[in-house]
């Protein structure tokens, strides 16, 4: 590791007078800056003064320390960090898709057709009637979906439905999106088996319930087996069922949210449909609805005009309005289209099944070393509750090796850490989702490292508790970072 260039900020590499350019001779020395009318800078710019080679090395070293699916295994639970096939990029780069968002419909027929085909494919996969691809991200999709629910109730004149039910195992975005959409949140508990407690749900239902948000399989990677009963109860009280598509991956081509009784859902193209994920996206959060709710979807919608034989952008007056300029992150939609066509109808179900097989394979091979709080066949992901007691995980011991320590030690072995301390149902949650795109060799290598870390935790807990040791930046002081945050270079 060349820390001269990586461990510092570009400002710290600055030397007075260093330049990465040379200007031609100044022909305007005779002019005074006082003659400039307005907008004259009063202070120095304080830009770093560095030569070109330093800039190149600094940023190249920084980029080499980036971690992504293209550099290593990324078992982040509930995030579906699957591989993004390079053919997606080739198709998204086709010249014909490089069009201005204001291009008239008549000159953008190919793009509109692609939008409609993705929309229809997602509807088929989900068992719903129609999708909008306009929302820019998963949480934006959640907000849009909740606005659909609100619009539906308002249009029926049922204005007293102010509450959304959310399970205690839900992704944090669920209650957050519901609050932003103007709803109050009601929490429903999980049973000891980790699924929604139907008996706890029943007394919550009433004429003030707008709907219920669920993830299935839930954040523990468990299929909500009571889902037909839950959907029946929520519908009976007049509410709608919302499906958080973050965990759609294992369901692909096997079962459909629409068939389970869900009315509205979002999908994360950047999770399930192999478009880039993390690092600022851009993401895409399409929202689908069952038949009868299509008019609530945001404008514009893409429709095929049979009479004229062409695609058009349609603005529905009953729509909830617009949630985006134009038609969403179109470049991302192209990548998802490429993925869908690459797999095809025959292979989409294999993605779901293999993601389930991979998760269960890791779970079964590691359960001798890590605590498995809920012992059932999981779907695409599962949750351990830290190390087993015989491997230093006894939480009665103040010095026990925690999930955080295990996650930090994984960095030493070149893996991205899994999701930790979520869901909140367990104290030492460690959540692993391998996805279907990893080979058995990769899974075996990861399992070997996880076992080695458990053995290290037993034989040399101090070393594990002070990990990472091989990364350019060592263990950070989380408490200090929160209590004394420094946001600018000057604050250092």
């Amino acid at each position, binding site marked *: 590791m060349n820390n001269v260039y990586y461990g510092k900020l570009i400002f710290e590499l600055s030397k007075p007078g260093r330049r990465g350019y040379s200007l031609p001779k100044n022909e305007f020395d005779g002019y005074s800056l006082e003659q400039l009318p307005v907008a004259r800078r009063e202070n120095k710019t304080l830009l770093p003064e560095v030569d070109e080679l330093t800039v190149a090395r600094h940023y190249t070293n920084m980029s080499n320390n980036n971690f992504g699916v293209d550099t290593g295994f990324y078992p982040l639970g509930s995030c579906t960090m699957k591989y993004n096939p390079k053919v997606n990029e080739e198709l998204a780069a086709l010249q014909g898709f490089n069009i201005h968002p204001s291009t008239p419909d008549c000159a953008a027929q190919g793009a509109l057709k692609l939008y409609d085909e993705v929309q229809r494919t997602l509807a088929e996969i989900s068992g719903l009637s129609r999708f909008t691809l306009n929302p820019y991200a998963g949480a934006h999709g959640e907000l849009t979906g909740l606005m659909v629910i609100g619009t539906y109730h308002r249009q029926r004149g049922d204005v007293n439905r102010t509450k959304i039910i959310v399970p205690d195992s839900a992704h944090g975005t669920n209650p957050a999106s519901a609050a932003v959409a103007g709803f109050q949140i009601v929490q429903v508990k999980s049973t000891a088996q980790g699924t929604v407690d139907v008996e706890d749900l029943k007394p919550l239902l009433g004429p003030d319930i707008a709907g219920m948000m669920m993830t299935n399989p839930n954040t523990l990677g468990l299929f909500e087996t009571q889902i037909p009963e839950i959907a029946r109860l929520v519908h009976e009280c007049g509410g709608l069922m919302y499906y958080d598509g973050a965990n759609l991956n294992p369901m692909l081509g096997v079962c459909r949210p629409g068939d389970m009784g869900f009315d509205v859902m979002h999908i994360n193209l950047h999770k399930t449909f192999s478009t880039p994920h993390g690092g600022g996206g851009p993401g895409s959060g399409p929202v689908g609805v069952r038949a009868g709710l299509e008019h609530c979807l945001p404008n514009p919608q893409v429709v095929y005009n049979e009479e004229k034989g062409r695609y058009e952008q349609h603005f529905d007056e009953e729509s909830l309005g617009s949630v985006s300029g134009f038609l969403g992150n179109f470049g991302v939609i192209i990548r998802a289209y490429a993925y869908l066509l690459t797999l095809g109808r025959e292979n989409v179900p294999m993605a779901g099944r293999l993601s389930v097989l991979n998760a269960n394979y890791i779970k079964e091979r590691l359960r001798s070393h890590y605590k498995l709080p809920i012992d059932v066949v999981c779907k695409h992901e599962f949750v351990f509750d830290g190390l087993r007691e015989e491997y230093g995980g006894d939480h009665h011991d*103040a010095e026990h090796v925690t999930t955080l320590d295990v996650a930090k030690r994984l960095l030493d072995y070149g893996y991205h850490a899994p999701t930790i*301390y979520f869901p909140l149902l367990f*104290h030492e949650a460690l959540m692993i989702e391998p996805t279907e795109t990893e080979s058995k060799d990769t899974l075996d290598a990861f399992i070997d490292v996880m076992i080695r870390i458990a053995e290290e935790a037993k034989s040399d807990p101090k070393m594990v508790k002070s990990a990472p040791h091989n990364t350019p930046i060592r263990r950070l002081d*989380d*408490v200090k970072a*929160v*209590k004394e945050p420094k946001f600018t270079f000057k604050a250092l």
Partner: protein
Amino acid sequence: MAKIIEGLYYSESHEYVRVEGEFGYVGITDYAQSQLGNVVYVDMPEEEDEVTAGEEFGAVESVKAASDLFSPVSGEVVEVNSALEDEPELINQDAFANWIMKVRMSDPSELENLLDAAAYAKICE
């Protein structure tokens, strides 16, 4: 093992009340702080706020998670522990000494719904 003090009232959501006359001092238990890890922020109510038994009155944020606080008793907040504003880590040092709010209890019979030390020790096992 986490410390549990005799004579206090405990909730299943890991808050305690220490009763002195008509006042109740409410905080989180030693078990709660040990599970949360390093506490970095305590979101407290304001004086004169009304709190209701079983309802949220604030939150504790640690490096691991943010957790809502549920009031074990109803009444009016007469004082908050302002030392926690600058030093939330006091809760980690001694959760029972560093209460979060002092409440003038409007219905002391609510205390009967809470757990005693022995019953609370059972749910921490």
